């Protein structure tokens, strides 16, 4: 299925979850937040939240500057 990850189209297996998408993008899950269709998914729910056709996934990185 095709989903949009950080603004780019990606082909993902049908059983993809938020956790598996994060693992594809970054090796470090710490300091990262994920929004699925503009709503942040709590860390505890990553593995059980399925990603569906045409979903938009956004992986956000914490920055510290001020």
């Amino acid at each position, binding site marked *: 299925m095709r989903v949009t990850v950080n603004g780019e189209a990606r082909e993902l297996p049908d059983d993809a979850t938020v956790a598996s998408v994060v693992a594809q993008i970054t090796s470090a899950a*710490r*300091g990262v*937040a994920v929004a699925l269709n503009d709503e942040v998914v*709590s860390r*505890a729910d990553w593995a059980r939240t399925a990603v569906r056709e045409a979903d938009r996934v956004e992986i956000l990185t914490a920055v510290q500057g*001020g």
Partner: protein
Amino acid sequence: MSLPPLVEPAPELTVDEVRRYSRHLIIPDVGMDGQKRLKNAKVLCVGAGGLGSPALMYLAAAGVGTLGIIDFDVVDESNLQRQIIHGQSDIGRSKAESARSTVNEINPYVDVVVHDEALTTDNVMDIFAGYDLIVDGTDNFATRYMVNDAAVLLGKPYVWGSIYRFDGQASVFWSEHGPCYRCLYPEPPPPGMVPSCAEGGVLGVLCASIGSIQVNEAIKVITGIGEPLVGRLMIYDALEMTYRQVKVRKDPECPLCGKNPTITELIDYEAFCGAVSEEAADAVKDSTISATDLKAMMDRGEEFMLVDVREPNEYEIVNIPGAVLIPKGEFLNGNALSQLPQDKKVVIHCKSGGRSAEVLAVVKGAGFSDAVHVGGGVLAWAGQVDPSLPTY
């Protein structure tokens, strides 16, 4: 979700104050009531730096009656590209005092409380207790988690903002009405993974873009107008010129503000965030030389390879003679190891010693057991060996 005003109105505005705030007073949503609430409000700005500069200046101009400023640092020339509350003549001065002068000049009706000290687990609860709302303009993860935890434990709302290069994020964290910082980012990135502004840079004007959002939200929360940025994260991209937002819910599993909290008091934030990784801390033990040691090795004509692990644009600003540039990322992905000599000692340096420590861990792990890094990096070299060099 609109929320009730955070602060009760002050009894009255003086004639001078009415004149000064007239452009607020004639907005029906603000009016006398809202301006009196601002007058009665006590707001603490943590950090008088990039975000703190515009935040403090606009909070002062808006008529927030009591402004707390906490910063332990002194004004450096490299701050002036973005920290507009300070000027040329403030270089070397306490940031908190310098900020106080500017606030007094903008609005003499503001009571300024200067906390010329570092915010620590020993003083944060006492300091925060005296304020209605906190504005977070700090520059490191450890302080950010401490600010969040103290605000949640005290039940205070705080307006959070963070910046890096061209990107900014902002939100209002208020556990009584929505998520906290830990609901969004349960823990910081691994040490060394996300550069600070000192390492990666920041577009000066980005501070105003995010700092002004923070003030906007502070005013709304204090006066109870509009839709505060509670439960929403604003994401700003200055290159694309886009503002986007995502919803953030309270995480029932949040260790701080969730249903069964496991963090019920302040913790050790340096340990939680890790200034350097454990591997790096192990690697530098007995394998750190000073800039003057490096100079002595050069003067003795010793055979070694000096590797600069910063980025090319940093190398262009200043470099140590004879250093070969191989950015840190090339070591983390393993590509650079084949470029290291087997028959010569390897000496690694970066800007101030953090990145070189991480690379040293990788290099030693690959079998270069006599490799060392330069404590303090090129900044120490410029300070102790060749003061003619520029620093950044």
